[in-house]
């Protein structure tokens, strides 16, 4: 098989990961395997995977049918991710929730917290309560205790023992995955980039849906290798003498608005070189400390670093933001937030201030899963790119 063909097959597998995962999960569940549904990266996958359980993502990314259905119970003026997730479970249009033995909720905002209380009537739930302050001295011990509670709950519910050895193994595996993601972002540093932002998105989504981790890690390794070689041979996604404007995309809930934001940015000729914010680069750069004698401590220590806007103050995010802009040689920042995601929307202003101080062009777009604003978004994005190209 040629390298081009191999890469295209791997990328197809990533792109189809979610579709294929529903069959995988169905078979696994019928096989008696345990499936855990969760919503965000605060659900410690290391603990879930340690006893061999599968973790699936339950975040809704579509508008119709889940959102109109969810709005029969939830306020319309709520974040679309919460409505879509709830509506998909309520209407049984999410196979992953259907096959989940238990759903793990992480209290990443008030809207989600309250939605979990309603979800508890539909499915077995375990809610992990996050600390408010991401400061290790103030929050680490209580956060570790919260994760211990989660581990105990899994052990009791499924009658298993999660040993330190199990945890160490899953930490090791997921550290590999984490470092691969960081290496993937490195491909965006190249000039021209060795990977497009849309391709990155597809790999990021696959992280939650390629449940055979060994396969996922092998395929990612091969992808990174081929992309790097291709770039050296001038066969990357951009021609050698092409220098598209370099965009850093920041924000949360992006998977529900990929076509009208991410895809539009790249269709208009710009290159997304890195992502920042929810599921962005920041959290991928440091692995979990494998030398820590207490693996639960190591996990808690790492997860407290997730730079989520729900944390206050979210100092880590802002401290590292300009480093990312400089390291990836970014021409402009586009912050994308979804309707009613107040934490990220408000933090966007802080990013804007940092950008202004450093003379980095900045655009904030607010959108929703609902269609209708494609034209206006496109005009804003297009004007921003024209502005960058003229600098």
């Amino acid at each position, binding site marked *: 098989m040629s390298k081009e063909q191999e890469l295209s097959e791997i990328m197809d597998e990533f792109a189809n990961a979610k579709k294929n995962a529903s069959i995988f999960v169905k078979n696994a569940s019928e096989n008696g395997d345990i499936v855990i549904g969760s919503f965000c990266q605060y659900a410690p996958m290391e603990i879930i995977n340690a006893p061999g359980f599968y973790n699936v993502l339950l975040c809704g990314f579509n508008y119709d049918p889940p959102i109109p259905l969810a709005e029969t119970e939830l306020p319309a003026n709520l974040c679309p991710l919460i409505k879509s997730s709830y509506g998909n479970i309520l209407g049984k249009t999410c196979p992953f929730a259907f096959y989940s033995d238990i759903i793990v909720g992480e209290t990443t905002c008030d809207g989600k917290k309250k939605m979990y209380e309603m979800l508890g009537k539909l499915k077995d739930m375990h809610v992990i309560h996050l600390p408010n302050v991401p400061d290790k001295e103030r929050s680490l011990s209580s956060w570790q205790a919260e994760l211990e509670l989660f581990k105990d709950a899994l052990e009791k519910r499924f009658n298993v023992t999660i040993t330190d050895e199990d945890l160490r193994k899953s930490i090791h595996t997921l550290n590999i995955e984490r470092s691969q993601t960081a290496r993937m972002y490195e491909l965006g540093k190249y000039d021209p980039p060795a990977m497009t932002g849309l391709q990155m998105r597809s790999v990021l989504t696959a992280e939650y849906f390629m449940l055979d981790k060994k396969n996922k890690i092998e395929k990612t390794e091969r992808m990174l290798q081929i992309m790097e070689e291709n770039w050296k041979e001038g066969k990357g996604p951009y021609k050698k003498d092409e220098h598209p404007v370099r965009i850093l995309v920041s924000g949360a809930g992006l998977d529900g608005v990929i076509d009208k934001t991410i895809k539009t940015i790249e269709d208009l000729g710009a290159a997304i070189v890195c992502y920042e914010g929810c599921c962005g680069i920041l959290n991928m750069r440091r692995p979990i400390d494998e030398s820590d004698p207490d693996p639960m401590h190591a996990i808690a220590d790492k997860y407290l670093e997730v730079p989520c806007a729900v944390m206050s103050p979210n100092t880590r995010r802002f401290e590292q933001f300009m480093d990312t802009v400089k390291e990836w040689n970014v021409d402009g920042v586009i912050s994308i937030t979804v309707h009613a995601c107040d934490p990220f929307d408000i933090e966007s202003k802080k990013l804007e201030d940092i950008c202004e101080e450093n003379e980095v062009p900045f655009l904030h777009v607010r959108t929703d899963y609902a269609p209708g604003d494609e034209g206006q978004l496109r005009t804003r994005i297009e004007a921003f790119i*024209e502005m960058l190209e003229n600098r």
Partner: protein
Amino acid sequence: MYYLGIDMGSTSTKVIVLNENKEIHYKKVVPTGWNCLDTANGILEELKNNGIERDDFKCVATGYGRISVPYMDKTITEISCHGKGACYLFNEKNFTVIDIGGQDTKVIEIENGAVKNFNMNDKCSAGTGKFLEIMANTLGVDINSLCELARSSKNHISISSMCTVFAESEVVSLIGRGTSKEDIAYGVVDSITNKVRGQMGKITGTNNVVRLTGGLCEIPFILDSLSEKLGTEVKSDPLGRYAGALGASLFACNIK
């Protein structure tokens, strides 16, 4: 060779043709109507009647209907075009352009003749020409008369609803309460210029040279109200509504 700029907005389409010396050879405003393609073809027909054939010009299209002009050589957003056109029109290099359009209100910060930053209103029509149009209809007057009525208001009231639909019911209940037409008209204009001031606040440029373009720039009371809100004299130009089309035609000059 001629250079054609077409600014196809949500309400009206503005056309500018420049000659080789970058002088305005032809200009026209037509209603955009419901079919952008028909409007675009009508313009082509009109140009032919004026002796300009397709091979005689380069064309840049802008505005929300920019992709519906089948014979354009290039599309450029209205932000860049308004910036370019305003620089030419006002002979300024460092200033802020406000464009109040039919469905969008844009604030564009220009530095050294190039767009440095911009801001557009959200999806809804608050603070746009559409808002003014609907309120004028509710009061049974045209936009120009509404603005003149506003000038003679004795008791300044404010309309608190941002949403056009809610604001309309607010206006209807003001009419019901016997509030004078002049005062309601003042409230309507005040609502728009307040919204524009809010948008200006998001653009942090330090210069206080402000110019208004777009369909409302010919209305003196809008300029007065904006000047008062922004604390600086907001000026316009008789060709202000052509700024986008003019910018597009100037960009067309660069097409090889």
